[in-house]
């Protein structure tokens, strides 16, 4: 049974080699001109205001992120359901409707509590 996996092993090996090779090429051939902006943890062309360790993100980011994950997970369920929708019975439709209904109630709760208002 193990021989089925031989291609996978080959692929892993070649991926590792390729990555290592590219990094090696970059180290040996690439020009190196350091400047302070390049050393920042987050580089987008504008100079960072605070030192990185003291940097605080507003807690609202997290709440929004949680909301995002909830709907992300919803997609995981909805996608396969949608693909085989025609072969499924009414029960599947009702089930997913309840599922979406619960999520909608949650969203309504979040909106009503003012989670999406950026004050």
């Amino acid at each position, binding site marked *: 049974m193990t021989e089925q996996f031989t291609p996978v092993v080959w692929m892993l090996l070649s991926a590792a080699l390729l990555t290592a090779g590219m990094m090696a090429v970059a180290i040996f051939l690439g020009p190196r001109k350091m400047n302070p902006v390049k050393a920042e943890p987050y580089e987008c062309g504008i100079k960072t205001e605070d030192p990185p360790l003291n940097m605080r993100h507003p807690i609202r980011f997290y709440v929004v992120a949680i909301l995002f994950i909830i709907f992300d997970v919803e997609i995981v369920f909805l996608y396969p359901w949608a693909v085989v929708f025609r072969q499924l019975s009414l*029960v599947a439709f009702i089930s997913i409707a309840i599922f979406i209904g*619960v999520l909608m109630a949650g969203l*309504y*709760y979040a909106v*009503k509590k003012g989670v999406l208002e950026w004050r």
Partner: protein
Amino acid sequence: MDLSRFNLITIATPLVLGAGVLLVMLVDLLSGRANRRPAQLAALAVVLAAAAVCLATWNTGGVSFFGQVSGDGFASFFNLIFLAVAFLVILAGPAYLERNAIHFGEYYSLVLVSVMGMAFMAAGTNLLVIFLGLETMSLALYVLAGFNPARQSSNEASLKYLLLGSFATGFLVFGIALVYGQIGSTDLARFSAYLAGAGDPFAGYMGAGVALLLIGLTFKMAVVPFHFWSPDVYDGAPTVVSAFMSAAPKAAAFAAALRIFYAPAESLGLPWERILWILAALTMTVGNLSALNQASIKRMLAYSSVAHAGYLLLGILAGNELGAAGILFYLASYVFMNVGAFTVAWMVNRRGEGRYDLGDFAQLGFRRPLLAAMMSVFMLGLIGIPPLAGFFGKLYVFTAAVQAGYVWLVVIAVLNSAVSVFYYLRVMVIMYMRENEALKDVDRIPATFAAVAACALMVILLGLIPGSVLDVARAAVASMP
């Protein structure tokens, strides 16, 4: 699709609760900023509806969802206990929440969510369902423990409970994984069949798996040495939440333990017996001795609930039908005594949330005779004075243990009950015999008072008809698949 495998009646009660959670949340959203009454009424209605459904579907469910849940009498019995506790804390709670300016509608939905989790713990016949129920319950409890964000100790309680609780559930999951590794299934029927058939029940991963399962569950029961969280958490959490936490989750943990260990108890053999023996003896002794010298009523009740977990372990150790039925009866009476005692504790507290001094009870017997009489009923019930319910709970469990041959453990338990008299009695001494300290009057809160009265009534009533309730409990145990 074959619907017969999804018999919704088996999970009718938690389903009603789940729908109820949404309902309560929405009602609370729609009812304006200052008015929490509609949410409370909706929650009460949901609990009553769930109780009605529970009674209507009593022992009619059978095993369903591919053998993952069982809507038998056992689940129904426990559901009724959970719902009773939920009803009481929802009825009694608003006055406390108002007093501390933390009256948020989420209190009601969180209590219902956690009860839903407990219902799955009691109905689960698969380790994973039990785990899911336990997590659902615990998550809601973590939030409830920190329900008073303005108080540091409440935050501390929440964080402590979260961190230690996560560890414990980690152990539980690891245990489930090891059991799965050994028998290739998380189904409880397979689990007990394997143990019954195996020559050495702890061969392979099984020993470690069962041990880890035990750790995960005993943590939730607050059994020594996994009890350290309970006094801090009960003390720091808002007291209505402590009342809830000390009663319902403990019952749920015992329900899960009975589901997992009741059937294979006989095949588990000697090491298991020794471990449980030591745990039970340690738990009641440590709990009682620690409770002896507590100045705060909340900490005293927390340690007392540790001791009661020790007595209850006797029923699991006995492993016979009477032991299991005894646990059911014991829990049915214990939850009322504990909810009642915690509720009275916050009713009489006049020194602010930070100080739950026993001195608050001074002269209560003359300031509020009826309230003091009911508190006495709870304390005497916890001691186990006949003819109150607590006595019969102990009697059943101890008798079961004697039948199973654990005579010395029962002697230890009886002596422990005698030790416990000291600290329970102290409350009564203070209520009736300490001289006046010019305390402010206790508020008259009809709804809360009604909840306490209901608790006291149940403690007395269960003591007057212990036989018929035990019969129901026996039938419930017999209905387990």
